[in-house]
């Protein structure tokens, strides 16, 4: 089915990579503007409460932030390396690099987990009594934004992880898939009627076309060799689009890091 569909698409706009790219970029635009709304909110509140933002930012751990930045930058590097590897038909290298990306992304999330739980442990989370009682309004806004923006970003990291697992599945999947083949399909394959039919004892009974009512069951064994290590070109597009998405997640963090951790 999927192969059939693919040929039909190709028929409509023969391997139009450019169009697929336009689609992907437009999708990224919507992601940028989704965060964009929050960046507008950040800009507004920072202009309203400049001192409070600095006080609150000083409470965030710059070291953890910087480490996380490095994690994401490096994971971006491993993604592009995976893409190049796939382009050079080096499947194994590509798979390893995607695993590295996944690992860095997990490292990022683990860091984030410790960072958030430390803050929550100190009673700093949206709507907490300590936050509302001991902090100025500007700081409350800062933490609300911090949790919303890094939370949404974290959600995107998780989505990215899931996407990479799918890509891994597609790359590691054997290029030729063995499927059960019902007789209805098999009979349409050209030449089937000329296949020789052999009894269990080994004597020849004639061709499929000559079968009569006496035969109760035909056991068909097909042996074929899958084409090993032949890349499926669609995997490349999948990995590239996953990569584009992942770099966007990186770009957003590149802005989140100084805005929340460094403006002390």
């Amino acid at each position: 089915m999927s192969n059939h569909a693919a040929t039909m698409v190709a028929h409509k706009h023969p391997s139009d990579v450019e169009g697929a790219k336009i689609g992907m970029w437009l999708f990224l635009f919507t992601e940028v503007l989704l965060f964009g709304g929050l960046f507008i909110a950040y800009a507004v509140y920072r202009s309203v409460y400049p001192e409070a933002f600095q006080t609150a930012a000083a409470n965030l751990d710059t070291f953890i932030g910087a480490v996380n930045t490095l994690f994401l930058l490096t994971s971006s590097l491993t993604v592009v390396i995976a893409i190049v590897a796939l382009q050079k038909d080096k499947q194994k290298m590509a798979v390893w690099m995607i695993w590295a990306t996944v690992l860095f992304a997990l490292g990022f999330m683990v860091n984030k987990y410790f960072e958030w739980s430390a803050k929550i442990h100190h009673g700093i989370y949206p709507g907490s009594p300590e936050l509302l009682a001991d902090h100025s309004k500007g700081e409350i806004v800062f933490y609300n934004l911090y949790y919303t923006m890094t939370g949404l970003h974290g959600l995107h990291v998780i989505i990215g992880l899931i996407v990479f697992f799918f890509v891994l599945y597609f790359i590691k999947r054997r290029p030729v898939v063995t499927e059960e083949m019902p007789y209805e399909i098999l009979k349409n394959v050209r030449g089937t009627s000329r296949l020789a039919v052999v009894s269990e004892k080994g004597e020849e009974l004639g061709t499929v076309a000559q079968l009569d009512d006496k035969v109760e069951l035909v056991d068909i064994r097909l042996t074929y060799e899958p084409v090993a290590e032949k890349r499926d070109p669609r995997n490349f597009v999948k990995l590239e689009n996953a990569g584009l998405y992942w770099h966007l997640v990186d770009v957003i963090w590149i802005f989140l890091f100084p805005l929340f951790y460094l403006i002390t």
Partner: protein
Amino acid sequence: MPSHTLDDTVQNGESYLDVKGRYTGVFGWIFSVDHKRIGLLYLGSVFVFFTVGILLGLFMRLEQMTMGETLMTATTYNRLFTLHGVIMIFLFIIPGTAGTLGNFFLPIQIGAKDVFFPRLNLLSWWLYIAGAVMALLAIFTGDGMADTGWTFYVPYSTQTGTNVTLALTAAFILGFSSILTGLNFVATIHRMRAPGMNFHRMPLFVWSLYATAWIQVLATPVVGITLVLVILERTLGIGIFNPAMGGDPILYQHLFWIYSHPAVYLMVLPGMGVISEIIPTFCRRTIFGYKAIAWSSVGIAAVGTLVWGHHMYVSGQSSTASIVFSFLTFFVAIPTAIKVFNWVATMYKASIRVEVPFLYALAFLFHFLIGGLTGLMMAAISVDVHVHDTYFVVGHFHYTMFGGSVFALFGALYYWGPKMWGRMYHNKTAIVALVLQLIGFNTLYMTMMYLGYQGMPRRYFDHLPQFHDAHLVATFGSWFLVSGLLLMIGTLLYSVFRGEKAPANPWGGTTLEWQIPTPPPLENFDEIPTITDEPYAHKEEAV
């Protein structure tokens, strides 16, 4: 893509309505990735919600016939106008022209076999349905439909006990559906034009959809995150807009209108595109000022993103902001005026056939002029301070949205209906329906504008005695309007199933959709045409 619904044995040239695919019956529709079937799916669902919206509006008018409580309590009334707004905006007008006619005719008009991402196209319809179901769930679960108005202003929307969260989730999903349609259209227009069809040979409907699609892609995400922030405040207490937590409720309005103002252009631009198709066809001549009309669509979309603050003159934003926004707002009038002048100039030295679609185009111009000109009154700050949030605004936006884009949609259904379902409408019934609509529409909304200038605020369950007579007149008008609308929906439905068979080109149109059989075959064209001329090349001697 059609392959999913296709046997390999499909006869090319067979109508898309008759094609037997992998699925049959209703599944042959709701799983079809054919852009034409998706267009009709949208059309059907959109008109179901339109009918509901009309009836909600009628109930509101009936409540206003008397002072005090008559039909319903204030609580019910508040939910009713919220639902009316949500349905009419998110479930009707936004997908109304782009989702239905855009899906159906955009690929045909540019000489393509489908949109660029056919499966994504089906997904956006499914998301539309998911959003609609969510909105319906909001009515029947929890404390019932939100009572905030479709604008969901904080802090009221974060405090009310009604089911705002579910209504917002519905709006978010519908927004996502709209984004996917826009993304698909941009990719389609960029990559799938037939050979020879450069941007300046595209039909003007396609131009308007192009501008619309960009608004959908660039503005919708901002409102998406804004609605999410309100949901977060209601569920997790993250009060980004909550003044008790240092937040600013006016920031919500900025973020909301960053989308929702351009959204009015994404409601009206496709309507303008339709008018740019109907007028040259029935004038039997080329359109006057093709490039001016085409680029003014882009101009409207561009300037439209700069003017959201004119909804906020009295909100408490700075006076500077009000003045800047007022100044910018007036510039939207220019490309709009250019369009109107060019349309009228197209009628000059033409050979005009006065058919129902053309009458609707005239009605569009009539209403849209009133809507646009009253828009100028409200763009002027001092006047808006007086009329803001009164019935004047309600009248104004019904003139532009309803009298404008929706009348264009009606005209388009009479114009393109014969192509879509291959059958003609009943002429006399259609004209009677139009006359009823015109009488009712103008009585209702002109009276509303009068009431607004007298000081009648919008979203009032009840009214003061001095407003009573005008309210009565408006309600009378609504009866004419509703009967005209129901008659029209009836006659269109009749034409779908029982109408006379339509010829391939009943109006003598020159764009590509008129050059293929009626109803169109599954893949539109046997052979992709090569374009050598402008879209509205009519012969000098009218036939």
